[in-house]
């Protein structure tokens, strides 16, 4: 691990930590509000899995949604701000390779995603505790999901020239795919057509796989979820590395 990589990773983590009220505490609060409101309104009316209350069902979905959205926000906002402010040159002038650049931005995104997701999970303990059935499965989906969204954040941050372009990327792609991935419901409660369509959404497999890690029960096989999420990650990481290697929108 080169000094340049370690420094860039440290800088990216320090960056979000310095504004942690906004980057960690605020998204934790939003998720807790979801949990309180939806849990209160729908508790006792829905029971997606046998023996699992609705509030308990909701927790892993919200944890994973927080992980994914914050992993994306970290890399994408850092890059777009640096590009628009012009201070991106401070990481382009030093001897940092495209692989180190990618690794530092994505790992920092994973750290922020895990920090927010961990915060949501800790806060949820006040409302529900079901234990963790398969911790390694849960961890695998958190890390892979955060890496995938952190990578999408790098792509979005590099591609976008303006904040509203990145906003469109986030609001018309990331948020709908996350919200329609089964955070608040089991896809078995959907009509057949929408159930089938959900299987084309990789976010569904991230959240469903993580739920398997928590409850030991899920809508899809965890192996299928792992294969889909890993495949999506490899695809997106390949595209991102190709962009970085060519210098797309970063090196003229």
């Amino acid at each position, binding site marked *: 691990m*080169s*000094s*340049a990589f*370690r*420094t*860039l990773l*440290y*800088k990216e983590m*320090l*960056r979000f930590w*310095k*504004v942690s009220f906004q980057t960690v505490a605020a998204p934790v609060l939003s998720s807790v509000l979801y949990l309180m409101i939806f849990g209160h309104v729908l508790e006792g009316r829905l029971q997606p899995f046998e023996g699992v209350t609705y509030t308990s069902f909701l927790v892993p979905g919200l944890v994973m949604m927080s992980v994914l959205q914050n992993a994306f926000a970290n890399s994408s906002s850092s890059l777009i701000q*640096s590009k628009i*402010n*012009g*201070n991106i*040159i*401070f*990481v*382009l*002038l*030093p*001897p*940092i*390779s495209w692989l180190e650049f990618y690794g530092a931005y994505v790992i920092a995104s994973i750290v922020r995603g895990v920090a927010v997701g961990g915060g949501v999970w800790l806060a949820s303990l006040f409302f529900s505790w079901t234990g963790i059935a398969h911790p390694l499965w849960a961890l695998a989906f958190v890390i892979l999901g955060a890496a995938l969204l952190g990578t999408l954040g790098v792509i979005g941050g590099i591609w976008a020239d303006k904040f509203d372009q990145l906003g469109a990327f986030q609001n018309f792609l990331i948020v709908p795919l996350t919200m329609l991935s089964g955070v608040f419901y089991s896809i078995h409660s959907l009509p057949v057509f929408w159930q089938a369509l959900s299987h084309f959404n990789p976010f569904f497999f991230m959240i469903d796989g993580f739920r398997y890690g928590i409850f030991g029960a899920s809508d899809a096989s965890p192996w299928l979820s792992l294969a889909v999420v890993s495949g999506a990650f490899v695809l997106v990481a390949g595209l991102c590395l190709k962009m970085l290697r060519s*210098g797309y929108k970063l*090196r*003229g």
Partner: protein
Amino acid sequence: MPAIDAPAIRVRGAVKRFGALQALAGVDLDIQPGEFFGLLGPNGAGKTTLISALAGLLRLTSGSIQVMGHDVLGDYREARRALGVVPQELVFDPFFSVRELLRIQSGYFGIRKNDDWIDELLANLDLTNKADTNMRALSGGMKRRVLVAQALVHKPPVIVLDEPTAGVDVELRQTLWAFIRKLNEAGHTIVLTTHYLEEAEELCGRIAMLKAGRVVALDSTPNLLSRVSHHALKLRVAGLVTLPASLAVLGAVLQSGGLEIPFTSHAKVEGLLAAVREAGVEIIEVEIAKPDLEQAFVEIMQGAAA
């Protein structure tokens, strides 16, 4: 492996096109170690494009650039270690204090414990008492100084300053140039672009002038100045209201309180003074104005346009 006697910067056949626009049209340039080199040209001449290519911020359409013998693409790690760039734009990272930024910048170059040099940089740039201040709280001039410090944290042998004194006050300019001169005397190669031609004239040993992506003049500063034919005889005279026709044909122009007559050779001065006396003009004071880089610049650019 780079040659031991490699130039500090070697540019060969540098071409850069942005669609139909040709920003660099085949630049060849060698800058030797230890030089204080000026890169001049009007807006859009290609100076910043050339510096960006040198720094790896953009890739040439064709051609190559080496820094201390290291190709900026093939051997980019060594090339970038050898180079410090002070960018033209006043950019800064709003999340960090001055010291944090300089430590981070040091880390990018593989330097972990760099506080002694950081303290020296801060002292030389009059920033010591701002070390723990967030970048957002600094004035424009201070931000500019931090940019200089950031470019120097890794003690690069080659330092490029792209318009470093644009919009900064006289005091800062003096501080900055004293420090840059010191670095040059210590053996660092300095490449400067500036719109203040008197700065280039005073500081640079050699100058390249760019126009439309080409080098249109490349010579030592004294040689460039000697190319300018435009000396002038400046006379303060008594009570002259209209310009006598005999002086007008010599190219004389009437200015407030006096006359200015251009000439090409000092041998002609005696004859010009005689012509003024014959025109009945009473001379109070005589001054011979030397050509300056601004005149050289204008003449060379006009010549390049022809």
